């Protein structure tokens, strides 16, 4: 017995020691000046050209400043690092850089920093995720393959340290507006000379500097007092904290352990609880995220546009939005969202309006539908409730056997898309890359475009998009895109469901912490309440 008692006592002592050490919080003062932000582990090292997902993107946006910045409320573009972006033919652009910008390691931001960064992203063997953002630049085809025939794109030329020129393969009128996307950020010399050092401690030119990172736990940024932008950052320090469940992060914000949450758990949206819980800290604005249901046009059963429209008209969008999203989402009336420049309301007209009689009529015209209609989404993305509701709505309205058939993961969903393996409707989520109607069209509906998972091809649409790309000014380009959008909607390869607004929340400690309509954190606005 004595042996047992000693064993238990020893085990206890070890347990207590193990938990006791490591405690102790460092510097309460520092904690008081830090804004804690809900975050997730990024998928790639923090390189602008190699990051297309939200978590990495949020940190990169705080670390870097681009040529163009989007207004926090309207998303209107304005020059940031660029002094001027000029063109005479919408194909050749001259970009002048404002003097005085430096990277966090003290080296100057020059024309070369941008040209090197873009060339790196486009270069095939670098396998950068944002590679296709460079595809409009002249010479992209030679450098983007696995075995490039040229080291750099001939369309990029450095004129002097403050100036470079960009030649595109074809006119693209809205090109300057797209330059706020993170793939177009500059890279410091350190990235090319000391890659491992850069990845361990990224160096940017933005309003915050990298301080430290613990993988799978947190990442800390400190204010960059040498920041050359027009809006000075206020917050002393930002701590991005990794959460595996958004509900925990939400409870942390409500009880004051965390300051900023980038989305809301569905339990908080129900019955508008988040507005009661967060009070003035609850924020919502129009965004660039849409949900839609695509048709596999490679399946002959879906060849008839009338059938596709009938299914679209059988979905009671408003009822689903009210029941599942607490009325926060907006039923779609087209592919673009109202936060995008060039948005035209009600492009879809009656075909996106719930109308049971007309839907049944169209279905009969199309000769009905044989067999079960499957709706597919990945069940790891929180899509189950609304996909179920959409399937019910179609079944009740049209009397066809519509079923929700989830796949386990996003990667499985993408594998089916890449292999052209869908046998029914599939869910699409799209986040616009820049605030223009074009971001909702070219990559999705042009023949063989990168996210044209439908196998959709309409020469008239391709022609309309090309024409809009080459329009003499932005206003007429936007009109051209809107016309192309109407053409696509008339074919209905993809059923618009709704747009998701940008939703985020702040704790009572925070005076201001805003997202722009692109759902990017505008960290220069982050500010704590003065402490009494």
């Amino acid at each position, binding site marked *: 017995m004595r042996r047992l008692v000693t064993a238990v006592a020893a085990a206890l002592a070890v347990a207590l020691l193990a938990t006791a050490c490591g405690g102790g919080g460092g510097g309460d003062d520092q904690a008081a000046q830090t804004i804690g932000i809900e975050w997730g582990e*990024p998928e790639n090292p923090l390189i602008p050209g190699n990051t297309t997902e939200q978590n990495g993107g949020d940190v990169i946006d705080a670390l870097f400043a681009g040529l163009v910045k989007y207004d926090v409320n309207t998303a209107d573009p304005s020059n940031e690092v660029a002094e001027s972006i000029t063109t005479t033919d919408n194909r050749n652009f001259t970009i002048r850089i404002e003097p005085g910008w430096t990277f966090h390691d003290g080296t100057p931001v020059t024309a070369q920093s941008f040209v090197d960064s873009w060339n790196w992203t486009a270069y095939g063997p670098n*396998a950068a*995720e944002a590679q296709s953002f460079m595809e409009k630049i002249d010479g992209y085809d030679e450098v983007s393959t696995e075995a490039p025939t040229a080291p750099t794109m001939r369309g990029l030329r450095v004129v002097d340290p403050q100036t470079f020129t960009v030649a595109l393969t074809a006119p693209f009128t809205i090109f300057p507006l797209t330059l706020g996307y993170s793939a177009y950020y500059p890279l410091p010399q350190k990235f090319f000379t000391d890659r491992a050092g850069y990845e361990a401690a990224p160096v940017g030119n933005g309003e915050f500097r990298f301080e430290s990172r613990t993988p799978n736990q947190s990442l800390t940024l400190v204010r960059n007092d040498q920041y050359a932008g027009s809006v000075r950052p206020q917050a002393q320090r930002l701590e991005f904290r990794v959460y*595996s469940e958004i509900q925990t992060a939400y409870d*942390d914000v409500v*009880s004051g352990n965390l300051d900023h949450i980038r989305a809301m758990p569905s339990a908080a949206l129900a019955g508008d609880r988040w507005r009661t819980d967060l009070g003035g800290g609850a924020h919502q604005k129009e965004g660039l995220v849409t949900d839609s249901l695509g048709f596999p046009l490679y399946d002959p059963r879906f060849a008839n546009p009338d059938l596709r429209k009938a299914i679209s008209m059988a979905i009671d969008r408003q009822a689903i939005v009210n029941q599942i999203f607490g009325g926060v989402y907006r039923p779609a009336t087209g592919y673009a969202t109202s936060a995008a420049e060039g948005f035209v309301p009600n492009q879809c007209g009656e075909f996106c309006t719930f109308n049971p009689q007309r839907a049944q009529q169209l279905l009969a015209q199309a000769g009905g539908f044989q067999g079960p209609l499957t709706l597919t989404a990945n069940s790891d993305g929180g899509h189950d409730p609304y996909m179920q509701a959409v399937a019910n709505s179609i079944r009740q309205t049209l009397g066809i056997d519509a079923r929700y058939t989830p796949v386990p*993961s996003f990667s499985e969903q993408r*594998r089916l898309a890449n292999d052209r393996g869908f046998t029914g409707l599939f869910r699409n989520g799209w986040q616009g890359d820049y605030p223009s109607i074009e971001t909702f069209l070219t990559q999705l509906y042009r023949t063989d475009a990168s996210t044209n998972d439908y196998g959709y091809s309409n020469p008239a649409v391709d022609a309309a998009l090309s024409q809009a790309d080459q329009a003499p000014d932005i206003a007429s380009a936007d009109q051209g895109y809107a016309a192309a959008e109407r053409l696509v909607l008339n074919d209905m390869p993809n059923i618009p469901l709704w747009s998701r607004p940008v939703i985020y929340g702040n704790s009572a400690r925070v005076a201001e912490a805003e997202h722009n309509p692109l759902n990017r954190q505008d960290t220069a606005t982050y500010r704590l309440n003065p402490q009494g």
Partner: protein
Amino acid sequence: MGRYTLRRLLQLVPVFLGTTFIVYFLVWGLSDDPFAGKCGQRECSASYVAQMTERYNLDDPLIVQYLKYLGALLTGDFGQTFSGTEVSTLIATAYPVTIQLALVAVVIEALIGITAGVLTGLRGRGFVDNLVLVSTLVLIALPVFVTGLVLRQVLGVELGWIRTSVPADPTLGQLLVPGFVLGSLSMAYVARLMRTSLVENKRADFVRTAIAKGLPRRRVVGVHMLRNSLIPVVTFLGYDIGALMGGAIVTEGVFNIRGIGGLVFRGIQQQDIATVVGIVALLVIVFLLANLLVDLLYAVLDPRIRYD
């Protein structure tokens, strides 16, 4: 006992090889396109896929891939995740908190469970006995995530007594509630196991002999009854420690503890082979060692058990 221990340690080798191979096979072998969801809604560029294929030796036959991986593992190289983070760094940051949480949970379940079991087992039917039976029934019936969410909501959000999430470097106090949640189910089993075991041993021959010898009650209960009744409980606790060292996906998720369970869960979701196989290899060893420890403890508890 030395030779027995050595034999058991040698047995670890084939078990380790087998489990890691099965896990490796399951994660890589079952998907024809592991990079399908890696580039958002766009398809990944050919050069990205080519680079990743080379980095993880995906062009080799599965067995060659596995052997290359194993070779690196034996030299201490756990490999890198898709995002370029060293898996060993991930484990090093995640494991301490998992161990702390597991120990807190086991200590809580052992202390409360054994105490409750002894109280009810010795006294027999009565109010305390019924109370323990009903409360353990409730704990067994409740899934852990319900216990966790309810305690977080009530103690964290409504009353503000605890933090709703556990910070990166937790203190003992901050781990008490998560530890209780994690240990609650096993605590109920420990209490019931202890009670049954005591009640059975009450009528055992050696207890009657001890009483007949005229030993004081303290010694009869403390040495003869308790020590023998503890054997099934220790078996259970040993298994539990092994299981808890493997992380606790649900509890870690509820309290945002950045431990090993959540890490391996996300690794599986993202098909991050290096993370999954690396951690599983480690967990297999921990689990086997925990079981070995339990077997050795038997000899300490029960003089009738001898190895060699």
